[in-house]
């Protein structure tokens, strides 16, 4: 009997918990909502004025054409508590969540891309929470607002010879400022759909400019720099000569073939036709970077048409190499001591990315030679290194820079593999081990 009663009590407790949690949540919501009403029982008319008695500078500020609507409606207590809070500036909630209590739809779940500042709740970087001269309380008007962070892009856009009209009109022509449910890079939709809102791909001129190839379904941004370029047609500044010379049929079937965009050869063999010297040199090496021999061959890393980067690279080296070697890139990011070439994404400073006769695809035979390109060993230490100095830990190894350092970094200082120097040294000098 007792057990039956206890079972009933437990069941009731579970039901209470289930029902109580939504009630608590509702109460929390109500509390937030109340902050937009006269929660503090201020005297009629006092809501907008009482704060200004001390914060007089705001009186002028609130004369700007665009005032945040809660201030107009409720005054400062809409967002600030007049007495005490747990948050800076007497805000009623954490700044990363406060705005979202009213602006709920800004960051829909499952968005394809999100503006980092918005995701981090740094709304005030773009919007003035009190008042502004610009619509939506934006701190600056038009592209100038975006350019205040995206300085590199701004500099490029301003200096390019051939400008893209929608960019001039405003970044928000193509990008959504908060998030995009449809595409990466905050684009309102993916290319070519986005581009087709202005460019008609069935027009004779468009077809002629694209050498009669059916490119309407291709991603325009593979060849065109939509932010402007110094090349006509806004082609990326580095263009593959067959592409720039409009000799598409060097690589593709002819435009009237059943599959005009099909490649004439696969993988490395396609590029070998023109780049035979490079390819033959590559194939004469002991070690090959395996992707070179894969289905896509050179196109794993290089764009076939045009690129903003030297060598027609598909992306910056750190991102490109990191797309496969994420663990190596991560290691550098976690490292206390940063190795400059790795930090700068200059993987090719030490590695031959195509092929090499040396371990780890090093550009030089000796690791010491690789490091000596930047480091003057004579100024570094007096520890003997070189082909004649045997590593005491292993008779098949000789002492070199990687005997004590890991070039992509470690969790310890100076890219050492151990927490303390003595721990490292006593691996060989065991007599000194304590």
């Amino acid at each position, binding site marked *: 009997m007792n057990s039956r009663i206890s079972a009933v009590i437990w069941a009731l407790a579970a039901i209470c918990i289930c029902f109580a949690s939504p009630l608590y949540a509702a109460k929390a919501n109500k509390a937030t909502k109340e902050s937009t009403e006269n929660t503090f029982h201020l005297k009629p008319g006092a809501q907008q004025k009482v704060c200004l008695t001390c914060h007089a500078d705001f009186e002028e500020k609130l004369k700007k054409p665009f005032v945040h609507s809660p201030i107009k409606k409720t005054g400062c207590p809409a967002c600030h508590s007049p007495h005490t809070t747990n948050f800076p500036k007497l805000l009623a909630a954490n700044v990363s969540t406060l705005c979202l209590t009213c602006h709920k739809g800004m960051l829909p779940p499952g968005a394809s891309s999100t503006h980092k500042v918005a995701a981090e709740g740094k709304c005030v970087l773009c919007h003035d929470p009190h008042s502004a001269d610009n619509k939506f309380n934006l701190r600056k008007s038009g592209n100038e607002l975006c350019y205040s962070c995206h300085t590199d892009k701004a500099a490029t856009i301003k200096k390019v010879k051939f400008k893209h009209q929608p960019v001039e009109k405003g970044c928000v022509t193509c990008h959504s400022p908060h998030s995009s449910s449809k595409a990466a890079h905050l684009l309102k939709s993916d290319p070519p759909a986005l581009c087709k809102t202005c460019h008609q791909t069935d027009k004779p001129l468009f077809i002629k400019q694209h050498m009669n190839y059916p490119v309407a379904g291709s991603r325009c941004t593979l060849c065109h720099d939509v932010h402007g370029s110094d090349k006509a047609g806004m082609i990326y500044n580095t263009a593959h000569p067959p592409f720039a010379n409009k000799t598409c049929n060097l690589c593709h079937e002819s435009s009237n073939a059943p599959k005009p965009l099909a490649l004439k050869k696969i993988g490395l063999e396609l590029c070998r036709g023109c780049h035979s010297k490079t390819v033959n040199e590559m194939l004469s090496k002991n070690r090959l970077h395996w992707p070179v021999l894969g289905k896509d061959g050179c196109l794993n890393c290089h764009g076939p048409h045009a690129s903003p980067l030297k060598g027609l690279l598909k992306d910056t080296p750190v991102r490109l190499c990191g797309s496969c070697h994420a663990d190596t890139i991560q290691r550098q990011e976690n490292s206390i001591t940063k190795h400059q070439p790795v930090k700068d994404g200059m993987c090719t400073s030490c590695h031959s990315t195509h092929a090499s006769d040396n371990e780890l695809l090093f550009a030089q035979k000796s690791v010491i030679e690789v490091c000596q390109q930047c480091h003057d060993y004579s100024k570094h230490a007096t520890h003997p290194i070189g082909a004649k100095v045997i590593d005491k830990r*292993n008779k098949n190894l000789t002492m070199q820079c990687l005997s004590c350092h890991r070039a992509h970094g470690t969790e310890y200082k100076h890219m050492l593999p151990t927490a303390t120097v003595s721990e490292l040294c006593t691996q060989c000098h065991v007599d000194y081990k304590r």
Partner: protein
Amino acid sequence: MRRIEMSRLIVLMIILVLPLFSFGAEPVKMKYALSLYADEKGTGLNQPEGIACKDDRLVVADTGNGRLILYSLQGGEPRGGKEIKLPQIVYPIRVKVNSKGDIFVLDEKLRKVVRLTSEGTFKQYLELGGLPTESMIVPAGIDLDGNDNIYLLDILLGGRVLVLDGDGKVQRQINFPKEYGFITDLAVNSKGVVFLTDGVKSMVYSNAKDPGVFTPITGIMKEDLKFPSNIVADTKGMLFISDKNSGGIVAVGQDGMFRNRMLSLGWNERTVRYPTQLCVDKNGNLFVADRANSRVQEFSPLQ
């Protein structure tokens, strides 16, 4: 009333004992046995990448020296160390031995599979017959099943595993799984099930469910396996995988269950640097080609 109490007790026991069965897979543990540094004449190994065990034999691909070394295994301990240096082998990276003792060597520079007799005499370059689609292949991995069928990892043409008979005639092909990152190696178990390692995604695939299709048997294992480069299947349902970049060996059941991460990066014995091919002998001893440390290490199973 007593009946009800009893049934409650049984339910309680089941609840308490069930987790023990769910998480009861014992971690695989190995202990260090020995290291091999040289051939019988005392010439040191130089960046060995390949290793194969079969019956009482151990074959090492001494990559940096462009040669093979044949050892005999006596009670799990390598003896001898005969050098096989042939003009037909330039840069051996992987080795396998079939039931007749024939040695198959994958040469990275030649991008060919070389077939040798059990004594190490050159027999032939493996010629593929009856290829289903294109004649070009780029072999990047090799394994053999219990019937001496040859499994080649071909990274060209979108990637596939070619299954050949003992003479090199293509029997069938299995395409790489959808949305793979980069397939680094393959292994075949005694039942002919093929396993693939994905270096970029840190995953293992197999064709256990459907012989013609690869599906993942693990999730993304980035935490325990940074860059899987080589894989071997033993006869006891285990897979051993080299974690090349971060120095370690990971044991995964052939059902995909994680069983342990062993070893760490270093120079001293019991540690590894850029480990590559692995093999397991008939006693369950694991041999590791410890490439950057220019040695082979042996580990025995801890019961």
